[in-house]
C-alpha cells in the first residue's frame, strides 16, 4: 500500500505534449490576423473568407455530431435555415440583425431539444433519413408563413443604414467571430469531462455505456449544441446575403458540404474539419475557371479518403507525426523517474 501512495505523489497528468504558451501564441497571431483581415486583404478575399468561416462553423458542428457522438445527420441544413429565418424574424420585428445572432442561436437550441425525443427513437440510416425529413418539414412550415416571405423569401431589413463597405466589414467580422467562438467552444468541450465521454463514444459506444457514461444524455446535449452552431451559421449566412430564401437557407447542399469537408479533413479530431475547409476553398479558388470541376475533384477526394483513410487526412498526418495543434488528451508523467512509454 505504501508503494502505491508514494507513486501517486509522483504522478503528474499533463494536457499537451508541448508548452500551452506555444498554442496560445499561435492562437493570438491567428486571431489578430483574421480580425485585421478586412483592412489588410482585398474585398474579394474578405468575402471568400466569410464563406470559409460559415462552412467551418457547419463542419465543426457536424464533426461533433457525427465524428464524436456517432449521429450521422443529413439534416443540419434544417438548423441553418431556421437560424437564417429566426434572424429574419427578429430583424422584421425591429432588431438589429447583428444583435439577432444570439437570439437565433437560442431559438435553434430550443427547437432542437424536443426534436431529439423524436429522432432518438431511430438508429443509423433511419436516423439520418429522419433528420432530413425534419429539415424538410421545417422548410415547409417556414414556406407557409407569409410574414417571412413565403416561397420567394425576403430581404433582411435593418442593414440599410450601413455603407456597403461597412456592411462587408461587419459581415466578415460576424462570420469570423462566430467561427472563432464555435471552434474555441468545441475545443473547450473536447478538453472537458464531456470531451472524454465524446472520445469514448466515438471509439466504442458499448464500452462507454458499461463504463458509466450517460450516452443518451450526452447525445442529446451534442445534438442541441450542433443545432445552435448550425443556427449561428444560418444567422451570419442571412446577414451575408442579405436575402433570406427557403431554397437557399434550407439547401441540402449545406449538409453535403459539411459532410464532405469533415470526411476529407478527418472525423473525430478538432483539426480535421479545419483542414478539410482549407482544402475545399483552395481547390475551389484554384479551379474556379473550370466550372464545377472543383466539386468533382473534391467529391472524388472525399470518396478516396473514405475508402483508404477513414480517419481523414488529418488522421493520417497525425498517425505519422503525432502532431496535435489543439491537444485534448491526458499524458501521464512520473516525476520519480519511472518512465511511462509512449507509442
Amino acid at each position, binding site marked *: 500500500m505504501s508503494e*502505491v501512495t508514494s*507513486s*501517486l505523489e509522483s*504522478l503528474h*497528468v499533463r494536457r499537451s505534449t508541448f508548452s500551452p504558451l506555444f498554442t496560445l501564441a499561435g492562437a493570438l497571431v491567428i486571431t489578430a490576423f483574421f480580425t485585421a483581415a478586412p483592412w489588410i486583404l482585398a474585398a474579394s478575399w474578405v468575402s471568400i473568407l466569410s464563406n470559409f468561416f460559415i462552412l467551418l462553423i457547419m463542419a465543426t458542428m457536424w464533426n461533433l455530431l457525427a465524428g464524436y457522438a456517432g449521429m450521422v445527420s443529413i439534416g443540419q441544413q434544417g438548423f441553418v435555415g431556421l437560424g437564417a429565418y429566426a434572424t429574419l424574424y427578429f430583424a422584421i420585428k425591429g432588431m438589429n440583425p447583428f444583435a439577432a445572432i444570439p437570439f437565433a442561436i437560442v431559438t435553434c437550441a430550443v427547437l432542437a431539444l424536443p426534436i431529439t425525443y423524436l429522432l432518438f427513437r431511430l438508429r443509423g440510416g433511419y436516423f439520418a433519413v429522419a433528420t432530413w425529413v425534419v429539415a424538410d418539414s421545417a422548410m415547409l412550415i417556414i414556406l407557409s408563413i407569409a410574414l417571412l416571405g413565403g416561397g420567394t423569401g425576403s430581404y433582411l431589413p435593418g442593414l440599410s443604414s450601413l455603407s456597403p463597405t461597412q456592411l462587408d466589414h461587419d459581415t466578415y467580422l460576424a462570420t469570423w467571430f462566430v467561427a472563432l467562438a464555435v471552434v474555441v467552444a468545441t475545443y473547450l468541450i473536447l478538453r472537458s*469531462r464531456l470531451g*472524454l*465521454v465524446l*472520445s*469514448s463514444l*466515438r*471509439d*466504442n459506444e*458499448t*464500452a*462507454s*455505456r*458499461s*463504463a*458509466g*457514461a*450517460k*450516452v*443518451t444524455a450526452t447525445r442529446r446535449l451534442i445534438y442541441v449544441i450542433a443545432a445552435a452552431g448550425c443556427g449561428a451559421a444560418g444567422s451570419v449566412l442571412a446577414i451575408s446575403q442579405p436575402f433570406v430564401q427557403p431554397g437557399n437557407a434550407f439547401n441540402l447542399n449545406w449538409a453535403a458540404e459539411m459532410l464532405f469537408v469533415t470526411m476529407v479533413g478527418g472525423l*473525430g479530431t478538432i483539426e480535421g474539419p479545419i483542414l478539410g475547409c482549407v482544402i475545399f476553398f483552395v481547390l475551389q479558388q484554384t479551379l474556379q475557371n473550370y466550372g464545377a470541376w472543383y466539386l468533382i475533384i473534391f467529391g472524388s477526394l472525399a470518396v478516396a479518403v473514405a475508402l483508404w483513410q477513414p480517419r481523414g487526412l488529418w488522421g493520417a498526418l497525425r498517425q505519422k507525426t503525432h502532431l496535435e495543434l489543439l491537444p485534448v*488528451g*491526458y*499524458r*501521464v508523467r512520473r516525476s520519480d523517474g*519511472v*518512465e*511511462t*512509454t*509512449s*507509442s
Partner: protein
Amino acid sequence: MPLLQLEGVSKRFGQVVVASGVTFQLDEGASLGVVGPNGAGKTSLFGIISGDISPDAGTVTFAGKNLASVPGPTRCRLGVGRTYQIPQPFEHMSVFENTLLAAQQGARTRGRKSFELAYTSLERTDLAPLANRPAGTLGLLHRKRLELARALATKPRLLLLDEIAGGLTDLEVSELTAIVRELQREGVTILWIEHVVRALLSTVDRLICLANGEIVADGDPRDVLNSEAVRRVYLGGAIINEAATR
C-alpha cells in the same frame, strides 16, 4: 439481502435460447464462478445484468433495486462493473484515458481524484508503464488487462469477469488470481465466467454450470465439476479432466 438476484430470467435470439428461467442470488462479498460450453449463454447473462441486453422475462435485482428500467450507465454507477470477453478498448484513446473515463463516469470522481483512481487501476493490473500508449496498439493480453483495469476504475461493488484468464501462462494466471483475491478481501463481489478452471478453483466459493441458457448445476465448485449433469454437458471434455487432476 443478496447483492444480486436473478429471478426467472429468460432471453432468446430468434431460435437461440440464451437464458431460460435463470434464477440465482449472490450475497455481498461472495464469489461465484460460471462454467458452461461455448454458446451456453454465459456472456449473454452478463449482458442482461449490465444492461447491454434486455431480457424477455424475469427480473434482475441489484442491491434491492429492480434493474428493469435502469439503463446500463446507471447500473455501472450503482456498482456493476464488467469486462468483455472480446476486449472493447477505446482504441484512439490512451490506456490512461481508457481508465480515466471509467473513473470519471463510472465512479463519479473528478480532477486529481479521478487521475489517481485511473492510475491505481493501471498499477494494479501492471499496465502503468503503458499508460500513454494508444489502446489500439495493445496486444490481446494487454487488452484483456485493460478490460479489468477499466472495470476496476468504475469502483464496482459487483465485478463481472468474462474469460479474462484465457490464453495466459501459468504465471500470468497466478498473478491474475492474486489480483482477484485482493479484490475479494476488499469486499468486492465477483461473478467470473472462466474456462481456466484452476483460476476459478483458487478464487470462487461457488460454481454454476450453464447449458443452453439453463443452470444445470449449482454448488461447491468441486462438486459441480464432478457432477453427472456437468459431465453430460461436456461429454467428458477438457474441463473435467483438468478438475480431476487437481
